[in-house]
């Protein structure tokens, strides 16, 4: 029981923000929460948020693990393009759905392995290591699609983007199941704790016997796997692979979702559920701005303001300030500055 209350307390701020945004939208649009069933599939704005948020939610799952190890994965957007292109290529070659999925997923895993080796074995800073694939990845994707937008008509593949399982859209089912599996795997075993240990102090955890090298590679591969699922969904949704625009800037949205979810960029404790709620918050904001008739241009400004607010709340300086306000007058921040390296 104690664990459940602690969990609820952990995700309470995110839930409150999400509820606040949804209520705000429904005040202006009374019919917002209307959900109906047509053609054996659920329709309505809330379902739309769950559905449209699928790629970012999937990316956020992998990104949470990566950020918990004090890393970052900038390549996920480009990976989406690669895996989407692979899926479309497989479809044009006449492969069946299992073969296509296997191809895409292994493409994602290989890219994740590459990132993981750069970070864990060659000890390159994660931001730089994943930058390589971020730059080269779209080129590779274009190599696969040969510069064109590869379209396909394979019903089974399209089903992943716009079909429905038990009236719920397939993408929603996929990200929810993926989130559940990953949460169970990391929380029902010691894996989650070991990942957090790496994020808090890599050397200490290695000395304590954590196989940090394998674990880091596995984490980046998990991120690649999530990106490949997101890429297949994005490609199946538009029935084509667009190497230039698939997943463009979604890595930033995924990082934002994790940050909104309260996982610190400095590594350590993480919560996948909170990151998923973070992804929904971003999507709810997008939908809300679209519905309200505000020009979508404001979207980025609002996102920037949200990031800034969270930064100020998360910053070590604010925390020390809060402690000092309780105890004694705050000294000059320059003197108390702790160096994180």
């Amino acid at each position, binding site marked *: 029981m104690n664990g459940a209350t602690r969990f609820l307390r952990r995700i309470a701020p995110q839930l409150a923000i999400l509820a606040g945004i949804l209520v705000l939208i429904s005040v202006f649009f009374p019919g917002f929460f209307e959900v109906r069933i047509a053609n054996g599939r659920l329709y309505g704005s809330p379902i739309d948020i769950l559905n449209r948020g699928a790629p970012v939610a999937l990316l956020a799952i992998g990104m949470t693990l990566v950020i918990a190890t004090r890393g970052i994965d900038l390549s996920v957007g480009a990976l989406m393009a690669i895996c989407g292109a692979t899926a479309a290529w497989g479809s044009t070659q006449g492969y069946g759905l299992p073969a296509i999925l296997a191809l895409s997923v292994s493409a994602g895993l290989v890219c994740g392995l590459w990132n993981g080796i750069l970070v864990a074995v060659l000890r390159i*800073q994660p931001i730089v290591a994943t930058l390589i694939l971020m730059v080269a990845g779209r080129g590779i994707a274009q190599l696969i699609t040969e510069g064109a937008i590869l379209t396909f008509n394979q019903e089974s593949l399209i089903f992943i983007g716009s079909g429905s399982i038990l009236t719920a859209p397939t993408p929603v089912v996929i990200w929810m199941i993926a989130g559940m599996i990953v949460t169970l795997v990391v929380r029902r075993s010691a894996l989650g704790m070991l990942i957090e240990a790496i994020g808090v102090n890599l050397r200490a955890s290695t000395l304590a016997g954590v196989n940090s090298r394998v674990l880091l590679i596995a984490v980046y591969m998990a991120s690649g796997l999530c990106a490949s699922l997101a890429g297949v969904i994005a490609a199946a949704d538009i029935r084509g692979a667009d190497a230039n625009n698939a997943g463009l800037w979604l890595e930033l949205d995924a990082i934002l979702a994790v940050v909104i979810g309260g996982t610190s960029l400095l590594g350590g404790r993480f919560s996948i559920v909170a990151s998923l709620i973070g992804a929904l918050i971003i999507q709810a904001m997008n939908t809300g701005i679209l519905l309200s008739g505000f020009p979508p241009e404001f979207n980025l400004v609002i996102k920037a303001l949200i990031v800034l607010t969270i*930064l100020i709340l998360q*910053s070590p300086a604010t925390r020390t300030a809060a402690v000092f306000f309780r105890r004694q007058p705050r000294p000059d921040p320059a003197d108390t500055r702790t160096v994180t*390296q």
Partner: protein
Amino acid sequence: MNARLLPLIATVVIFLAAYAVCYVQFPAILSTRVVGNLLTDNAFLGIAAVGMTFVILSGGIDLSIGSVIAFSGVFIAVLLRDTGLHPVPVFVLLLAITTLFGACMGAAIHFLEMPPFIVTLAGMFLARGMAYVLSIDAVPIDHDFFDLLKDAYWLMPGKGRLTFIGGLMMLVFLAGIVLAHRTRFGTNVYALGGGAATASLMGVPVARTTIAIYALSGFLAGLSGIVFATYTSAGYSLATVGVELDAIAAVVIGGTLLTGGSGFVAGTLVGVLIMGLIQTYIVFDGTLSSWWTKIVIGFLLFAFILLQKGLVLVSTRERGTADGPGRGT
């Protein structure tokens, strides 16, 4: 000192070798016309990359410059369209805004103690968003002064044109080299890149230097925006997406260590020229697609990072300390 020069030497050798390979295939590539175009076409990237060099030398990163360049273009175009102002006061106003913008990011990084990555990510959203708010459409710039800037050139021997913006980039690089290697500010930047704790113990004004570095990056991004607006004669809020990545790539290919503390502004110029040369080669070849640029740049990035890792490993072994490289950003 020798090991420190090695990445720069490697960059120059790669550039010369690449140029030689291009020359063997297309002898015309050695004309001053191609060189002039190389400078003109990459002027905006080069100017922004100088700012990025300082940021990376200090151990930080600035993701906002692409958005700031786009914002600058839209800002100039909208202001020239809606007010009757002469471009010069508009430029001054713009540079003041972008410098202040950079300074604010620097202050946030220092006083909030947050990673530069996420602070400048917020800055990237903000600048791009402000550009959207000003105008979503491409706004043409139609002003005599802009035509003057665009058409100003110095005829090099061999009929190559060193345009005003190409020359401006060279000037900025010269100023950057002097600033990095001949001033106290430059020394402070290198010291900061070596480690904030040691720098502050040595008496480097960490707060002032951090803010100045990001202010400089903002200023140069604004200047780059002016150059880009001159180059394209328009302001478009969707332009220059991902230029920050090109700039980071140019800096790394130029031999600057991404962990900070070691590198040369001049190397960045060669890095920019290498990237420009790849594009020129693809244009000359005609059969290769432009996506090869990205793949080759990605490969070069990887090669240079490996080279740097090797050098760091060798130099730490020589010093006898087995300390692993830092992982913070």
